[in-house]
């Protein structure tokens, strides 16, 4: 779960990392008020997209009147598909220099990775590898002050910046661990009057660890439909085709999408019904697919923990309640396959046993329906 910039900065501040004075505003009046209190500000759209500044999501206001006008322009605008509902008004910083620092989890080494550069800012992704200092953390040791000093030295920092940066890395690692962060990133890490200030911040929390972070605000991401399926507890991504797909397991769901395209069809979504979904969530998920009004629906199940008869029951339940008014192709093999297929046959639904045949048939039926 991503956190908005203002939330991420709140966490930084709690851990003693300097941020500029700022406040959340949601109307021209509150923006005007913010400028009165803070002086000239940057008004920053609170949206969960990268490249926000380049897309027009950061503007400046020197006077209360200007603050009201700019906020009026920005609130309600759409930025890369996201509607801007809140702005973060932050005292404008006379930035002398921009650094970069982040901590993330490296999948290959299975260790936390601290990255830093003396060349931070919007172009960080184009900075040459040799200008980025990377250091892995032994999680059983953690980040001690010497680790920060060595990184500061690698960046060529001196005097107060050397000390502040060393200290900041230790604090950032505390956040990464204590908040179960997938990513904590400060870019730019600004130098203002010779001191470090976090000018922007990202904090992404591991969804699996949310149960132990009731202190964090919940941020919903994705379309309404995506949120609806996430609430059922299933993984879902919208695509732009017309064949709706349900499969069990993320790899299987991806392979099903691949198979649809292989036969010339266009998948409408990615839906992982989970490794062991029972009747209820499966039926709910299928209900969502029906509500999308696709040209065809393909259900592709290889039952392991998932039982084929449970999937069949879910299909029959949806058919007999909300109805399935579009062509439905079911592929069902694995645990309790015979019981599942019998249940479907009794309702006049044919079940395939070979994935390729089912995918090809779904594409064929979608074409007929066009």
């Amino acid at each position, binding site marked *: 779960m991503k956190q908005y910039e203002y939330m991420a900065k709140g966490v930084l501040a709690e851990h003693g990392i300097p941020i500029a004075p700022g406040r959340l505003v949601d109307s021209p009046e509150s923006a005007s008020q913010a400028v009165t209190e803070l002086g000239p500000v940057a008004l920053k759209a609170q949206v969960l997209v*990268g490249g926000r500044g380049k897309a027009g999501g950061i503007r400046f206001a020197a006077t209360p009147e200007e603050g009201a006008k700019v906020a009026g322009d920005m609130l309600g605008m759409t930025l890369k598909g996201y509607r801007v509902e809140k702005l973060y008004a932050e005292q404008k910083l006379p930035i002398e220099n921009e650094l970069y620092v982040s901590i993330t989890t490296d999948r290959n080494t299975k260790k936390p990775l601290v990255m830093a550069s003396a060349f931070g800012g919007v172009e960080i992704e184009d900075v040459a590898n040799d200008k980025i200092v990377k250091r892995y953390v032994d*999680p059983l040791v953690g980040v001690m002050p010497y680790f920060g000093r060595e990184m500061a030295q690698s960046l060529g920092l001196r005097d107060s910046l050397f000390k502040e940066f060393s200290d900041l890395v230790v604090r950032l690692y505390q956040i990464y661990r204590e908040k179960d962060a997938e990513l904590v990133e400060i870019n730019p890490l600004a130098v203002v009057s010779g001191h470090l200030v976090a000018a922007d911040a990202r904090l992404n929390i591991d969804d699996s660890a949310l149960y132990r972070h009731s202190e964090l605000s919940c941020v919903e991401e994705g379309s309404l439909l995506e949120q609806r399926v996430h609430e059922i507890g299933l993984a879902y991504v919208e695509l732009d085709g017309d064949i709706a797909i349900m499969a069990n397991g993320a790899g299987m769901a*991806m392979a099903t999408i691949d198979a649809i395209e292989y036969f010339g069809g266009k998948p409408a979504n990615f839906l992982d019904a989970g490794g062991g979904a029972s009747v209820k969530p499966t039926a709910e998920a299928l209900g969502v697919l029906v509500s999308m009004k696709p040209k065809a629906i393909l259900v592709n199940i290889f039952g392991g923990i998932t039982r084929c008869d449970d999937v069949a029951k879910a299909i029959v339940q949806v058919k007999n309640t909300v109805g399935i008014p579009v062509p439905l192709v079911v592929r069902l093999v694995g645990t309790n396959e015979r019981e599942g297929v019998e249940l479907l046959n009794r309702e006049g639904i044919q079940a395939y046993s070979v994935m390729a045949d089912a995918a090809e048939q779904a594409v064929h039926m979608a074409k007929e329906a066009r």
Partner: protein
Amino acid sequence: MAILLTHQDRVIVQGITGNQGRFHTRQMLGYGTPVVGGVSPAKGGTEVEDIPVFDTVKEAVSAVQPTASIVFVPAPFAKDAAFEAMENGIRLIVMIPEHIPVQDSIDIVNRARALDVTVIGPNTFGIISPQEHTKMGIMPNHIYKPGPVGVVARSGTLSYEIAYSLTQSDLGQTTVIGMGGDPVVGQTFITVLEQFRRDPETRCVVMVGEIGGSAEEEAAEYLSTLGKPVVAYLAGRAAPPGKRMGHAGAIIERGKGTLDSKEQALKSHGAQVVTMPWQVAQAVREALSR
């Protein structure tokens, strides 16, 4: 032969009295797995499927001398269970639960390295060695058969699909192993390929990968050392570009992680990459007849 898990192992089940633990203990016994005990705090002294249940791993170790443990406890307790097994000398741990916090997995996996413990998972279907009639996992029993093919997968059901198609084509397996779907897991393609390299009965290896991360790219460089033919299927050919994790993700991957990048890397090191799961069996047959 097989890798990592043989019939000589003695398996305990942590979380044996839960629904999943109970059900899969029965399935594992049915397949022939030497399950010698279970652990469930405050349930010691009872039995599940005639298997003795202990309060602690320590107690199980002194009573039944296990070598391996399969963990079924709920995710919030998984780190505790894994450390309990490791610190009591268990050398092979299969972590079934999904939704284990990544920070917990980091601690488990790094401690395992320090102690030279093999961790499979988390969020895995486990490991099965058909020739040995032994499995630690939740995979269906009937879709495998003994034979010369080693299978290593990132994804569960997709590996069932592929293992079953191999079995139906009369291409049996030495060992099928699921590395697990989480960002941080105990094994990499390279550690598993190294095991398959040392197993004389594994004559061909199937890699089931997917987009994201750079595990396949890293593994590609190892293939020349493997000395055995590799058939790879990669899921996500038609998937839209994945979620980016801020700048840090982009800096780490730098072009890796896409299907093209993985396919090119694997092909350039001699692997045969097929486009659809149902093409794997034919490719394996050809590789074995060469």
